[in-house]
């Protein structure tokens, strides 16, 4: 205020010289005297003029004060923003500037029990196009199509994607280039602006069809996957990321997946990366070694041929699954790079259901293979003894109902051993009637029927062991004694999976231990690569993990499964049933005598079974049953066979189901050959002193650069597993 007052005084002083009229009209001029007349006539200094000058100063000060106030508000606002609220805005500035790019970890690989590669990551060479570098996208694609094939659909997709992405985001033109195509493009890169070759990862299954049902396949994360997996892993959000969709790939997905790495990058306002601020490497997923013997698996596939069938071979003590075949199978590789609609339609319209794992999800009436359970139930509950004899006239009458034996003339007088050997229906009709459904069901559940046995694989089905309540609830009628009678030969609502049949066989011959089937042998952790290491370095580290594969002796791993709960069977009863099964395959007139193993020390025991998939009407029976070969394939009986070997010290249990294979004796040769092969391989290994074959590492592994191919595989919904309709009538 003082400041302005001083000005004011001096201004008033200055007025003293006013009347001297020294104003000049010159351009750069100093005062000259060129008086002019005022246009308005007056130039007197009045009292008002002085007052006006004071008023001017007063008002200027008022405005100045007001402006000072406004300026203070600017300062205050600046203070508020940059001091009081600074931390909030600093955070926002970092949110703006720092982008987090996830680094996809290489997926853990899968090996068989001898270290053979079942699933690996392969290099996937892709041609990428960057619009801002390409300029004329269409012309660039034209130029590219002279070198490698670019289909119309590729072209449409690229042009569409280019529209929707920022100009610096690469768009994939072609993937899975072979080496020749890569070199052709690389050579011409100078003439192809905006095109680059990029290396991604592709899940590769070297054994193709043989492992499809066991390993499942990998694909893009679907919304339902995200919900099922909890969705807390940020990797699931990435469009390039692949997860296990079925089989072991799905079950062990959390272990195989690995942990995302992260690269903190500085991005500008349009999202372009400017520089990397820091980097945490991805941790590759665990490698997984399975109990599967891929050699045995492929041998089994040869045996099955093009039939619709399931074969399971497991270690009776450890529960390790050496072979699990579901035929026909699919090639999981077609899903890795995105399955084409034609292939997909073929797969889902095939009447043999190649996408269903019949071993764990196919439901069948167990037929005569269930007689093992009936026999054990009879012995355990005192309904029969090993020496109980019954007469078989070829049929069994209960009240008004007549149940037929498969042999029209009957078996005559039979005991337990002969009943198992020749698969006499009447003996088991009566046994089942004596035991009753409650006790029969209890024994069946001990053997693993009625609910999923808990193999390490998704979508295993439990089948059905009927109870009185179940029938009342589902059919609204009471359980009849006739239901129990037919249940004794494996019909009457019973539904089981081939895996359950193998488990039943194993639980019998291992002395009544509740063994659980296992695909996993061990998980081998991988190390994160150190900062700055080349991608090849990881490859070498992962090769080093083979030592871990070798170090575990097979015998030790197998013994590890010894601690299963005891089912409480009387060893004498177990022996009695096993004698019957051994007779069935090794004595003349045995139902599987033709399929016996003749090598000394490798003999097997087994039980045939067949289950009709349609009811035989009374009319048909009277007209004479048509030979199965003359009726359509899908109406023929299913052929079943369960077996174990060797007979003196059982090691392997095997179940074979051939859909519409007519009779169990058709399935038996498969089990015979497979069991024999398994034992031969053991002998071979014993001869080699448990030396395992060196895993072959021919360099087709992808160097685990944390990228996956961007092709989306459709998330296939599996068709419901087939379940064979069960008939009430016995046919054997």
């Amino acid at each position: 205020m003082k400041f302005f007052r001083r000005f004011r005084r001096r201004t008033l002083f200055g007025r003293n010289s006013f009347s001297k009229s020294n104003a000049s009209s010159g351009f750069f001029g100093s005062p000259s005297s060129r008086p002019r007349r005022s246009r308005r006539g007056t130039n007197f200094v009045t009292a008002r003029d002085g007052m006006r000058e004071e008023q001017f100063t007063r008002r200027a000060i008022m405005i100045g004060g007001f402006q000072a106030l406004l300026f203070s508000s600017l300062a205050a606002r600046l203070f508020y923003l940059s001091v009081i609220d600074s931390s909030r805005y600093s955070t926002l500035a970092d949110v703006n500037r720092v982008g987090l790019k996830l680094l996809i970890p290489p997926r853990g690989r899968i090996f068989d029990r001898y270290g053979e590669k079942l699933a690996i990551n392969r290099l996937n060479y892709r041609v990428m196009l960057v619009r801002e570098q390409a300029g004329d996208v269409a012309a660039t694609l034209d130029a590219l199509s002279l070198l490698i094939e670019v289909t119309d659909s590729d072209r449409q997709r690229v042009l569409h994607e280019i529209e929707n992405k920022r100009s610096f985001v690469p768009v994939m033109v072609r993937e899975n280039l072979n080496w020749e195509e890569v070199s052709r493009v690389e050579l011409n890169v100078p003439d192809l602006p905006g095109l680059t070759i990029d290396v991604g990862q592709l899940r590769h299954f070297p054994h193709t069809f043989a492992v499809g049902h066991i390993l499942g396949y990998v694909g893009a994360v679907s919304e339902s996957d995200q919900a099922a997996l909890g969705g807390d892993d940020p990797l699931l959000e990435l469009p390039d990321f692949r997860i296990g969709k079925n089989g072991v790939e799905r079950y062990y997905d959390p272990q195989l997946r690995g942990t995302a790495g992260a690269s903190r990058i500085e991005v500008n306002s349009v999202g372009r990366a400017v520089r990397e601020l820091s980097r945490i490497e991805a941790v590759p997923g665990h490698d997984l070694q399975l109990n599967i013997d891929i050699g045995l698996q492929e041998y089994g596939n040869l045996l099955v041929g093009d039939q619709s069938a399931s074969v399971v071979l497991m270690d009776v003590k450890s529960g390790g699954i050496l072979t699990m075949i579901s035929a026909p199978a699919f090639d999981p590789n077609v899903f890795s790079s995105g399955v084409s609609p034609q292939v997909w339609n073929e797969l889902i319209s095939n009447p043999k259901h190649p996408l269903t794992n019949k071993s764990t999800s196919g439901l069948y009436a167990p037929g005569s293979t269930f007689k093992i359970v009936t026999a054990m139930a009879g012995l355990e509950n005192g309904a029969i003894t090993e020496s109980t004899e019954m007469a078989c006239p070829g049929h069994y009458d209960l009240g008004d109902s007549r149940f037929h034996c498969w042999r029209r003339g009957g078996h005559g007088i039979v005991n337990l051993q002969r009943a198992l050997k020749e698969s006499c229906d009447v003996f088991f009709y009566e046994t089942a009637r004596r035991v009753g459904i409650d006790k029969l069901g209890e024994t069946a559940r001990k053997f693993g029927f009625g609910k999923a046995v808990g193999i390490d694989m998704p979508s295993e089905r439990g089948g059905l062991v009927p109870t009185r309540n179940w029938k009342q609830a589902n059919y609204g009628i009471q359980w009849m004694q006739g239901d129990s009678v037919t249940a004794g030969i494996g019909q009457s609502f019973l539904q089981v999976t081939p895996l359950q049949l193998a488990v039943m066989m194993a639980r019998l011959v291992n002395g009544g231990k509740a063994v659980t089937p296992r695909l996993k042998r061990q998980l081998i952790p991988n190390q994160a690569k150190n900062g700055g290491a080349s991608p090849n370095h990881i490859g070498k580290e992962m090769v080093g993990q083979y030592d871990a594969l070798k170090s575990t002796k097979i015998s030790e791993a197998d013994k590890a499964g010894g601690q299963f709960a005891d089912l409480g069977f009387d060893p004498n009863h177990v022996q009695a049933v096993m004698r019957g099964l051994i007779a069935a395959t090794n004595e003349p007139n045995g139902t599987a005598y033709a399929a016996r193993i003749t090598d000394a020390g490798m003999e097997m025991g087994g039980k045939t079974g067949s289950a009709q998939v349609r009811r035989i009407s009374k009319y048909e029976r009277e007209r004479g049953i048509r030979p199965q070969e003359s009726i359509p394939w899908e109406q023929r009986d299913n052929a079943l066979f369960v077996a174990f070997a060797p007979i003196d010290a059982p090691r392997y249990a095997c179940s074979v189901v051939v859909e519409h294979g007519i009779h169990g004796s058709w399935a038996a040769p498969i089990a015979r050959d497979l069991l024999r092969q398994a034992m031969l391989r053991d002998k071979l290994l014993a001869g080699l002193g448990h030396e395992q074959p060196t895993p072959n590492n021919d360099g087709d592994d992808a160097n685990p650069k944390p990228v996956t191919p961007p092709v989306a595989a459709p998330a296939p919904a599996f068709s419901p597993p087939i379940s064979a309709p069960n008939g009430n009538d016995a046919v054997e």
Partner: protein
Amino acid sequence: MSLVLSLISQPSQSLRHKLLLLPWGLVVIVTGLAAIGIAMLLSASGGNFDPWALKQIIRFAVGFALMITVAVTNIKFWLRTAWLIYGVGLFLLVAVKLQGSVEMGAQRWLDLGIMKLQPSELMKLGFVLVVARYVDSRGADFSGRLLSLVVPIFLLLLPISLIIIQPDLGTAVIFVIATFLLLFVAGLSWRIIGTLSAMVTVAAPFAWHFLHDYQKERILVFLDPSRDPLGTGYNIIQSKIALGSGGLTGKGYMLGTQSHLNFLPEKQTDFIFTMLGEEFGLLGGLALLLIYAVLFVYGFSIATRAASRFGRLVALGVTFFLFLNVFVNVAMVMGMIPAKGVPLPFVSYGGSSLVVMMIGIGLMMCVWVHKDVRLGPGGVE
């Protein structure tokens, strides 16, 4: 004719005298502000003189020469040519409407070949001169009569209606406020002020209807920034983030992330203060505001010392325009008032603004040099 005669007849020794009289402090302030601006333009382009800094240096040199020339010119010359300058300004405003180039949705620039001229900037000076001259010519009987407002309001309406249709609402508002301030210091009676205020209050709702949609939107977004966080509000949000994250001392010269990663739009023009705040923090921002404050005090001091009414009004008019430009720009980048395309005087990149504002300072200096010259109405002593 007499003008040419006087040009020839002036002895040159008085030119030296005038140069000695120049307020060199003002020259230092303006040069300092321009230097700050050039430094920020260097930062904006990542240390390159291209595309902004070098051009700005050349413009500053041109502006400097014009500033000194204007300062030593006899104040009577400006009194006499006031109407001419106003007329030229008006002509250019019409021309820009007819064939000006359209940039960022507004038709503000006239391409003169060597430079792009923004007539609305030039008009600020023409307007100050003509209002000062009119008030001066009205002499003693200005203050009390409502009628004496008719001419100034008419003088205001002509240019601002042309500016509004460009459209450039920000500059138009600055014109209106500057006019009011000028008439207020010229001695407008409180009675008339009251009447005017009442009229404006009544007219405001009608004016709303004549605003462009984008102008309405700007006002609405200002009232509620979340209305359009990625559209109109985006600039302001990013500007506030930049200023806030600068903190007390800033991120360092050329290290502002918001500006260098392009989150901050138009960082070299309207948002140059934000960039300064981000890189030099609160202290940098306050320092710049302080320099402006000194500049305005200079303006007031010159105005209050000038003997002639014309000189006082010219000095204050220029000060008002400078102040309003600074205030609107800084308040805008801090989200205090709606977004407007108003540059920061001497600092923002832009030829018209820099050169015209320097000519304005030249006028201010001219008033100082001729502070003891008494001018009668119409330029007669």
